């Protein structure tokens, strides 16, 4: 087995032993989904249309944005990253493998949401499973990229929580997960373009559920791929800079990764 595969296997299992990781990857998103899945269709029958795409994204978002940064901060703070470096673990593995393992857990949770949503809550099922799966993969790529970047730019766990929440809460409230973006006032609708969930929900609508697209899907795909790639590249670069300053300005790099998404504001 290659070194990276062994690393991935260890990381995958290790996350399941970590109570907070388990909570953020499975217990919280699935528990929240089961609760709202039982309540929301009774309050609003139209909720079944977005239950599966919204909560599958929510599961990946929670694990990646809330669950991934703190272990990465600890990795540096406790000297684990340095220990890995002297063992010969490449920086791309130190940064990338936890993200890949987190994505795998997120996709597993999203699959559980999809199956339970369709079978138990009679929510709308995706018409194109392949497109649905690809959108979830794209979501995992973008969210874990941003989660990794937050973990790398944050000097301590408290800062990482602040950054995580500043992305998580708007994504929940304005990013189309709790209510359609079209229901937002014009100003907030523009702001929601900066959030990956807005674009992912649009892609779900357009590609997986065959609903009328509100924008050109390729623009959403391009913006999301660019954001994810930029987040990983910046995270890797900052992580590899051993003698970096502890300046809080490093956090601004996290905002740079959102530039491709912000650029779509011009389109909307």
């Amino acid at each position: 087995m290659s070194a990276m595969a062994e690393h991935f296997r260890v990381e995958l299992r290790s996350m399941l032993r970590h109570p907070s990781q388990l909570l953020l990857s499975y217990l919280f998103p699935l528990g929240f989904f089961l609760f709202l899945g039982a309540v929301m269709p009774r309050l609003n029958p139209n909720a079944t249309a977005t239950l599966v795409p919204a909560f599958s994204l929510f599961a990946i978002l929670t694990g990646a944005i809330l669950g991934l940064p703190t272990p990465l901060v600890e990795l540096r703070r406790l000297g684990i990253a340095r220990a890995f470096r002297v063992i010969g673990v490449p920086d791309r593995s130190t940064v990338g493998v936890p993200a890949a393992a987190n994505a795998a857990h997120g996709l597993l949770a999203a699959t559980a949401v999809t199956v339970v949503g369709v079978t138990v809550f009679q929510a709308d099922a995706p018409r194109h499973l392949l497109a649905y799966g690809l959108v979830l993969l794209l979501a995992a790529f973008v969210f874990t990229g941003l989660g990794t970047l937050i973990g790398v730019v944050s000097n301590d766990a408290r800062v990482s929580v602040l950054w995580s929440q500043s992305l998580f809460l708007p994504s929940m409230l304005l990013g189309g997960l709790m209510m359609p973006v079209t229901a937002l006032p014009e100003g907030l609708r523009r702001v929601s373009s900066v959030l990956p969930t807005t674009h992912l929900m649009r892609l779900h609508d357009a590609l997986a559920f065959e609903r009328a697209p509100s924008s050109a899907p390729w623009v959403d795909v391009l913006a999301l791929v660019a954001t994810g790639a930029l987040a990983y590249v910046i995270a890797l670069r900052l992580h590899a800079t051993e003698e970096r300053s502890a300046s809080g300005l490093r956090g601004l790099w996290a905002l740079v990764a959102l530039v491709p998404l912000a650029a779509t504001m011009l389109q909307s």
Partner: protein
Amino acid sequence: MSPILEVVALHKRYGDRTVLHGVHLEVERGEIHGLLGPNGAGKTTTLECIEGLRRPDQGQVCFLGAPVVMGRVPRQMGIQLQLSSLPGTMTVDEAIRFVCAYRGTAVPMALVKRMDLTSLGARQYQALSVGQQRRLQLALALMHRPALVILDEPTAGLDVSTRAELHGILRELRSEGTSVLLATHDMAEAETLTDRLTVVIGGRVVASGSARALTAQGEGRTRVTVSTARGGLAKEPAIAGASVRTVADGYVVYDAADTAAAVSALLAKIAALNDSLVDLRIERPSLEDRFLELVRTEAA
């Protein structure tokens, strides 16, 4: 034979503060080389430059005849960092397989057994005692049979028996031809374990050589402690060639510059007093005495 590690004129600054002022260091093949210095002396920075983890401003590090490149830890080095850890939920077995996978070696079962890790296989890192964690970290540094092992204060915080066990392992490594560079604050450890020492104070090498040679170079005097059967010496302790340090409980303690002359004078005095010798102890100045002397000199 050329040294396995050669550090030449290493300089390093952090902002306005110069932490290394031209450090020179050589480690021979199959020796345990100690690196001593007070806190903030530049030991860890020196080690990090050697390991390729920190870029020196000037100077060169050659390992096995080739320059060490910043950011690329030489494969033939086994390193245990001062602040080193593993993910808390990783088990001992997983850590061993993980390191072997990245090192590209099979799991060396003999080493795992020698380090007493077999029974700890399923235990998570966070559940290990400090001694067990250090043993695991040392084992991980040795998995690929490195030519040079660099240990930064490996015995800090360990109990006496675990420390002795680690010393045994280091001696075994030396007997197998592995070189060890050991940064430590423990003077007794440095004195008994190392073949040669380099003392760094304020980023400068202020002394180097064997522990015996270093202590011999100092101004410290040999301490001679004597007691006699009838206590005659305690009543008239003065002798030629040594100064009386203390007289208590029938014991006289002298500081002697010339040990042989002092002992001869003592025996003559005891005979002249019609007394007889009960106990005689001769203590050379310790490495700790010499180290403190160096620190005081540098501070002055």
